[in-house]
């Protein structure tokens, strides 16, 4: 049976010196945070490094932790900041530049993303599984901010408002990013659906 304590309560306990509370928190969120970083960077080595940095930052920031928001919002904000630092170090396009991309230019090539010809698709179960794998692969073609918004919603289960807080952007911006992400993914998947 899982621990009924909330994430915020566990973090407060850890802040006050209860190391076991951190173990529970880490077990709850290690997978989602790791996948969030992995799908953002696309490289396991980089994801490992960022993952460790994110949790180390959370450990070092525990004394100033206040439960003013959800713990996951706080944690994914640390992760988003670390990602931004990573992109800057790598000289990738800035968030503002990608924000200006129009929908069509960012649209992935459906034909390139397609992994198998339609006539080779198995029955319905196999088709759905293929669709799911296709979606995950299509994520890489999304602009960084849209991918980040989608992953925060799908992995972190954050609301639009929480995504805005985690990414340090306004509500409308977060909503726009998420909407474009959904549209592009559906546009891609529509080609695969019968």
């Amino acid at each position: 049976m899982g621990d009924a304590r909330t994430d915020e309560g566990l973090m407060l306990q850890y802040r006050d010196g209860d190391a076991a509370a951190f173990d529970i928190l880490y077990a709850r969120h290690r997978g989602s945070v790791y996948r969030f970083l992995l799908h953002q960077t696309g490289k396991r080595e980089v994801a490992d490094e960022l993952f460790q940095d994110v949790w180390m930052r959370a450990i070092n920031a525990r004394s100033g932790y206040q439960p003013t928001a959800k713990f996951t919002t706080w944690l994914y904000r640390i992760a988003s900041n670390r990602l931004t630092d990573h992109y800057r170090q790598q000289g990738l396009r800035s968030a503002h530049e990608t924000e200006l991309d129009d929908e069509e230019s960012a649209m992935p090539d459906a034909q390139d993303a397609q992994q198998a010809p339609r006539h080779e698709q198995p029955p319905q179960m196999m088709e759905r599984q293929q669709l799911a794998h296709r979606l995950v692969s299509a994520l890489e073609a999304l602009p960084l901010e849209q991918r980040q918004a989608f992953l925060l919603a799908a992995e972190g289960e954050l609301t639009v408002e929480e995504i805005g807080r985690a990414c340090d952007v306004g509500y409308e911006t977060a909503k726009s990013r998420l909407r474009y992400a959904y549209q592009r993914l559906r546009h891609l998947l529509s080609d695969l659906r019968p």
Partner: protein
Amino acid sequence: MTTPQRPQQPDAELHALYREGREDELPAPELDQRILRAAHAATSTERVHGTTGTTSWWRAWRPVTSVVVAGVIGLAVTLNVMQQQQTDEFSDRQATTAETAASRAKSSPAAADSVAAAPAAAPALAELAIRAPAAPVPAAPVASVAMSPERSQVAPAENVTAPAAATAAEAFATKKASSELLPAAPPFANQTADVAAALSDKESIGRAKAELSTRGVVSAQAASVEREVAANDLEQKLKQIRDLARAGKHTEASELIRQLQHRDPTFVLPEDIEALLAASPGKSK
């Protein structure tokens, strides 16, 4: 074709597809161990250095400390006010006593005469009053008034000069040398000196007036005492002369009469003694 979505609601179908399609990617166990060790080490370090403990201690004791400090300040202020009130009350009593004595002295014709007639003799008589232990009669009221000032207000005013003299002695003793003159009550003497120093200018003026008035009363009282002593002495001498005359010792009786006449030229021998001397035959020693 793109299906329109409500932007506020997550796309549940896409999320479900994503979860089905993702591999169960997890961090390496070594990475987990490293992070968990760091987390535990951080709390251990805090326990050793007490950083979090110090913060918690301060946060826990901050309201208690505030309450204690406020209580101490409040207590100090209250005690200070109470002390000040006591001092003011005592000063008021002193001033009231002096004013009462002054008014009594003014209302007493004898005292007023004394004030008018004996300004030069006042210091000497005041000193006589100060030498209270040597003079039993004025010493008692001086001591009693000095020890409890409120008694002067409740004591019956049978003799106007008695409370006036007592008040004068008290005022004089307070101003000059109460601690020397009243060794039995040195703390009160010190208090009196403090209160006298704390009096305002207005009160000082009133006291000075009262003192001037009471000095005259002291003079009258001292003169009265002298007269009384002299009268007692005269009575004793006359009694002695009568005894000698009855015993027929006319020579000794005449000698005493001569001493009295020498001391007081206006002395007139009482008729009964003259009759005794004339009736009984004289015999010498």
